[in-house]
């Protein structure tokens, strides 16, 4: 066989499979979003009615607000904490290998099961502590409070998310030569100046990747919520993924939730592009 034919013989099946299992379902989803299909039985075209309804739907609106609030806060908190830990792990410390292993541990664990464990902590352990301390706020399950439940989910997401991002930052930090810092020290630069003038510019590409990847992951939050609140109390922690799953199947709103999914997709693409643009420009400016 000719070389080019071999490459084609490899690429074409990959393309075909990917199209069949990824693109084709996506196209189907778009198609059904213009119908009134329940997921079974007969259907009719309804034009853009589903889309108009998504924009008028308070429940969907609330899910978008919750999901974004959660994703933005978690992304920021995860990145701050993991940057701090990475800097810590990169300095001259004892037990570096062990500590690094511990901080990376959450990455290998199932989010769902961690969620179940934290669910117990919030329902039984923290109230026990709160009662001992006499704190009114802590003595109740924060997952039962619609204003605080999302924080519980952020805590779990951060607990797990820090692991991977720390590693990424660490990968960036080890490439910075010690000499740079020493030169800066001779010039009389403080810790703060060193961070902004040396550390941060050097790890900026990692910062970009972390921000984009974290944001995208947290916009799809599902496992943590299923394990901890099931979307409650009320609908205060219902994420878009959960809404599509629940509404799409249980509510018999297959077509409607498909429209919701398409809107969601457009939103994610726009955000990713904006993020990349802004972060790249900042990087270039540095």
């Amino acid at each position, binding site marked *: *066989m000719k070389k080019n034919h071999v490459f084609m013989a490899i690429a074409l099946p990959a393309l075909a499979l990917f199209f069949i*299992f990824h693109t084709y379902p996506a196209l189907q*989803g778009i198609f059904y979003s213009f119908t009134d299909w329940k997921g079974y039985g007969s259907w009719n075209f309804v034009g853009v009615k589903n889309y108009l309804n998504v924009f008028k739907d308070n429940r969907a609106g609330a899910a978008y607000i919750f999901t974004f609030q959660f994703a933005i806060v978690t992304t920021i908190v995860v990145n701050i904490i993991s940057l701090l830990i990475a800097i810590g792990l990169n300095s001259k*410390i004892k037990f570096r290998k062990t500590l690094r292993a511990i901080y990376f541990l959450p990455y290998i664990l199932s989010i769902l*099961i961690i969620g179940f*464990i934290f669910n117990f902590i919030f329902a039984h352990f923290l109230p026990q502590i709160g009662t001992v301390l006499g704190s009114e706020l802590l003595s109740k399950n924060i997952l039962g409070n619609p204003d605080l439940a999302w924080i519980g989910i952020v805590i779990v997401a951060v607990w797990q998310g820090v692991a991977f991002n720390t590693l990424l930052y660490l990968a960036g930090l080890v490439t910075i030569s010690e000499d740079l810092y020493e030169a800066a020290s001779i010039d009389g630069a403080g810790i703060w100046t060193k961070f902004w003038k040396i550390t941060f510019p050097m790890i900026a590409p990692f910062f970009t990747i972390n921000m984009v990847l974290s944001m*995208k992951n947290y916009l799809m939050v599902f496992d943590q919520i299923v394990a901890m609140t099931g979307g409650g109390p009320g609908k205060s922690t219902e994420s*878009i993924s959960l809404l599509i799953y629940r509404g799409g199947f249980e509510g018999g709103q297959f077509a409607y*939730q498909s429209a919701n999914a398409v809107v969601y997709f457009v939103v994610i693409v726009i955000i990713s592009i904006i993020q990349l643009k802004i972060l790249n420009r900042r990087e270039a400016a540095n």
Partner: protein
Amino acid sequence: MTRKKTNWIITVLLILGSLFILFPIYLAITIAFKTPPEMAGNLLVLPKSWSFDNFKQAIEMTNFFNAFKNSFFITFFVVIFTVLTNSLVAYAIARNLHKKFYKTLYFYFLSAMFIPFPIIMLPLVKQTSAWGMDNLVGLIVLYVVFNLSFNVFIYIGYIRSIPVELEEAAIMDGASTWGVFWKVIFPLLAPMNATVAIITCLGAWNDFMLPLVLLSDQSMATLPLVQYIFQSQFSTDYNLAFASYLMALAPMILVYVFAQKWIISGVMRGSIK
């Protein structure tokens, strides 16, 4: 020049921080060994006796070994097929990126990374069940195919750093394109293969959403899915539930304890790319 001394403040801070990571795991272990009456008191104390009754009961109740077998079966084959096929596809694309078709293909796979799973979830569930793929084999196929978009991205970066001269020498010796890949390129990809294998392994082992929506036969349930399915049956028997959680987490923790350095450097390699 001054050689820096150990920074004890940071060391202590990091140790304190690591307690926060270890605490839920400590709690899971102790509760898994306790009995329901012990739950009434201080949750932090160690169990009175280290009996494995909760584990025995959880194994029976959740049919643990069956779920373990399912998870293992899926993970094993997903890792094997992902490494073998995805590297091959990446190679084909990497060596032809100057051609329009392959360049388009590259961006096609890449752009799929931005499509959130819920968007294809509803139609995919219908499609796979209509084709009789709502089983373990179906899951394996889907994981391998979905993994393409990320893996092609990281493989290509690596393959492009391998000098073409190496291949040309092999071709001179009469090797086919096929032979070149398996004899020359694939071994050179070993570090990247390890990275992909680790990330794929963790992803397949811990995934919950795809098994949840795809599998309807309970005897096919994976470990995380089983924990979910038995939520209502654990009810308030937290000791039993935690024993079950712990067993579901244990295989990965064990692997991690022994291969920790290798896993961390593997994931790190993937991220530097």
